[in-house]
């Protein structure tokens, strides 16, 4: 797939949603991945997991629905869908760690060619660290997808031969969705480019020492 322009976050969320198999159980990380839920139509019958103890999480609560006892992992009030189930935190993380979720979609600061993920800590000495469920989510599904901008605000590429920030998980990411393209990762470090948005393969290859394989169908 090729597009002339980079895609915006909503378009990217729609693309991710389209790649999730109907009937899947999915955890959407905080931030950009949350947008995916807007494109998961009822017919897709996707069940959302929130790691603070619920399967069948619904949309964000409207003002008159807000219930302090019903929040998501980002501490945002949400709603309940029919067929939902509540459970405690140990059962909830057992569900992730045990590989029962079909897909996790996470944000990232950096991803390596072999699927190493850095998304919790810049490593700056004065930063107060907070990991939450990030390391559990990183290893917490059959497929772990990352959704991020390909470049930092300073123009540095975030898909790297090796990450430089402290790791969240080792070799855990299978696919990366970005505003400039979609990438399948592999243990060997070969990265298959599934789609490019407003960028040529040559331009991409010129920016990185990663061994890219062009599968955009161009």
């Amino acid at each position, binding site marked *: 797939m090729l597009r002339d322009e980079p895609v915006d976050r909503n378009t990217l969320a729609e693309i991710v949603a389209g790649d999730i198999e109907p009937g899947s159980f999915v955890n959407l990380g905080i931030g950009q991945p949350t947008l995916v839920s807007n494109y998961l139509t009822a017919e897709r019958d996707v069940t959302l997991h929130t790691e603070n103890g619920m399967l069948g999480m619904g949309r964000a609560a409207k003002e008159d629905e807000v219930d302090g006892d019903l*929040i998501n992992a980002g501490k945002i009030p949400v709603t309940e869908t029919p067929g939902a189930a509540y459970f*405690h*935190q140990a059962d909830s993380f057992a569900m992730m760690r045990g590989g029962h979720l079909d897909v996790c979609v996470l944000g990232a600061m950096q991803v390596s060619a072999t699927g190493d993920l850095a998304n919790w800590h810049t490593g700056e000495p004065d930063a107060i*660290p*907070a*990991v939450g469920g990030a390391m559990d989510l990183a290893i917490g599904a059959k497929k772990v997808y990352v959704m991020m901008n390909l470049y930092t605000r300073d123009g540095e590429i975030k898909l790297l031969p090796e990450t430089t920030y402290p790791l969240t998980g080792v070799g855990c990411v299978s696919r990366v969705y970005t505003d400039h393209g979609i990438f399948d990762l592999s243990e060997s470090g070969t990265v298959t480019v599934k789609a490019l948005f407003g960028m040529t393969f040559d331009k991409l290859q010129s920016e990185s020492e990663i061994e890219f394989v062009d599968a955009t169908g161009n």
Partner: protein
Amino acid sequence: MTKIVDTAAEAVANIDDGSTVLIGGFGNAGQPMELIEALLDGGATNLTVVNNNAGQADEGLALLIKERRVDKIICSFPRQSDSWHFDEAYRAGEIELELVPQGNLAERLRAAGAGIGGFFTPTGYGTMLAEGKETREINGRNYVLEYPIHGDVAILKAFKADEKGNLIYRKTARNFSPMMATAAKQTIVQVEEILPTGSLDPENIVTPSIYTDVMVAIETESTALAAREQGAK
């Protein structure tokens, strides 16, 4: 046997200085605000606190930290937009932080209650949170050895109890409380309402009475929320 007391102050009266206190809740959901306030009033200090977070805004756990009653916190997600009291204490070097991935935190609490001496978890392998920890490859996957977290006392919020001490929770306010109830020498619970024994369906008990040591009935917003939900049906 579960003791029922009349006030939050009585419930937390025998929490000693230097105790390890497991505090239920994920953010404010399930956080036992009234028990924490009583603990604050009671003056216990040099505490080690285990909670998912390190307090929000100006209530509950945040105030315990503000008042420098907490020497050490074991949590997964201290830094939030409204964790200013923790941030200040941490930057001042006045609180020790043990950062634990959330699922490992839950599992370590469960292990403490379940008599498990340690367990191999894949979470955190290869990261700085596993530095210095024993690792092992088992069937081609890499794991980190983690140990139980025991508490001297757990202070929790449940939804309903019976007089025997069986507990049920409400929605995502359940979170860490069922594990914490099993992991402490003494478990102290605030509940919206204490019903006669036999009122709760034995199939639906989340925390069996054996884990509940002290209870106090305190009505909070949860009661009104449950009533609103009932009305909506």
